[in-house]
């Protein structure tokens, strides 16, 4: 399982209702179903991934949240809404964050930290757009639209009066380190937030 998902599974309550926005092949929801007996719902736009969800017996809804929004989900109809590694690829990331906390009691989101030191050095010294295991794309064919840093997201939460329940930073093998905890915005590769209102 992907590094960020291994960590956030501990933040999900057994028996809760979980909405996974951009649920991929459904393996995360399938895992939560098997281990935590959650009620699952995934959103996905890729036909191949949707097929894999059906094969895994995961509830999947074909819907483009970026284009069509999430208005079809009732307020407070889920316990936890997950947005993993997708925030930076949305046209209106701030609006989706609002929607997550309207639909769910709490939200969990993960994103690549653009201020990771290797990214900074790539731009500062190399003069190139950063490429790394968390940002593997060339500048011209990346799905990412809105990169942000841990500081940026903290500021967004402050402005929107969102409470950060937990925040952690990890590398690509879901390891944390003293360095990362000391200067998360500099040493953290992936940021993981547990938020609520």
């Amino acid at each position, binding site marked *: 399982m992907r590094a960020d998902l291994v960590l956030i599974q501990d933040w999900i309550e057994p028996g809760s*209702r979980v909405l996974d926005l951009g649920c991929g092949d459904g393996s995360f929801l399938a895992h939560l179903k098997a281990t935590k007996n959650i*009620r*699952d*719902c995934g959103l996905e736009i890729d*036909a191949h991934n*949707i*097929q894999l*969800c*059906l*094969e*895994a*017996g995961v*509830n*999947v*809804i*074909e*819907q483009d949240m970026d284009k069509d929004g999430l208005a*079809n*989900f*009732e307020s407070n*109809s889920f316990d936890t809404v997950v947005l993993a590694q997708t925030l930076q690829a949305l046209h209106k990331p701030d609006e989706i964050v609002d929607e997550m906390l309207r639909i769910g009691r709490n939200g969990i989101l993960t994103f690549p930290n653009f201020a990771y030191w290797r990214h900074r050095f790539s731009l500062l010294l190399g003069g190139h757009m950063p490429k790394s295991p968390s940002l593997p794309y060339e500048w011209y064919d990346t799905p990412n639209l809105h990169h942000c840093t841990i500081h940026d997201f903290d500021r967004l939460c402050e402005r929107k009066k969102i409470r950060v329940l937990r925040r952690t930073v990890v590398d690509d093998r879901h390891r944390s380190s003293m360095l990362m905890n000391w200067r998360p915005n500099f040493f953290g590769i992936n940021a993981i937030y547990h938020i609520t209102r």
Partner: protein
Amino acid sequence: MSNSTKQIPADSVGIVKPQKLHFDEPLLLRSGRTLANYDLMVETYGELNAARSNAVLICHALSGDHHAAGYHDPDNPKEKPGWWDCCIGPGKPFDTNKFFVVCLNNLGGCAGSTGPSSVNPETGKRFGPDFPIIAVRDWVKSQALLADRLGIQQWAAVIGGSLGGMQVMRWAISYPDRLRHALVIAAAPKLSAQNIAFNEVARQSIMSDPDFHNGRYYDFNTYPRKGVMLARMVGHITYLSDALMREKFGKDASSSFGRDLRSGKLSFEFNETDFQVQSYLQYKGETFSKNFDANTYLLITKTLDYFDPSVDYGGDLSKAFVNSNCKFLVMSFSSDWRFPPERSRELVEILLKAKRDVSYLEIEADEGHDAFLLPIPRYMSALRAYMNRIAFDGGFG
């Protein structure tokens, strides 16, 4: 006489035989009227397992019947298979090696089940317009009695497209404990004004035919063929998409918008068939009018118009699904303008509000509403995956 032996594909259910089951218990209908007794024409494929847990029910749409798969006549090489043959058979999405598939002709139909063209035991004459209008819930009630007769307490899945999908919804509402999965394909929670309008044109075409005789055409040894033909022509347009018609009737390089001519030039006559789309529609209407009872057509369009399970729940359909125990798979097709994707998304929203387990797929297809009957690759893969999962979870996969 043809000597050619019939070639039956390996993944066909082969030669099948329908059976007529008689029911003696009176059926109280939504209209308040009662059907004293009735027959249901039924076809089954595959075997019911010992646990009786692998049965699926297929609900047909407007022009369908019990003959969903396989062939009836071993000697006729030209015979077309049942209406959903692409889905039902060994190795097909509704895999008859795993599932026991049941399909019936609904009450009010004209393929063997009791309907307007049946003889009314009280009068010794055909029912005609005296046959009660049947609601979707009445069909589902009769289907539940059929399940009892077949010894099926709970369907692994109830499946239907279009009007068939409406029966599936009704199953989930009326008999929440009697199905584990509901597959609602190319349907809508209720008809729109535009849908009803098309049905009204169809009914008016039939009723204004001089051979209709207020529905008692059987007694006059005649049949409102022209009316049924017109009704079907209008209906058929709504089953296709603009894109499909442009392609189908636009084979000539010089023709765009699907305006292929029949004989290469315009006739400048009213009663001539200039364009290919005209002769196609006439052919479709005519073929249909030979095999379909006019009163059944009237009845089923009414059944469609009346379908709205939310009426019992103050207009809030989500309340109707609160007690449903089954999982839902909802599917729509991009070019369907009879029951377009928005109508399926409406249903998904309702099911989410009712906190039901639901999956939803929007299949890219040019074939319009009719797409649900066709072997479109992504559609077939999705159905197969979902059904395999049902079999796996049920311990018979």
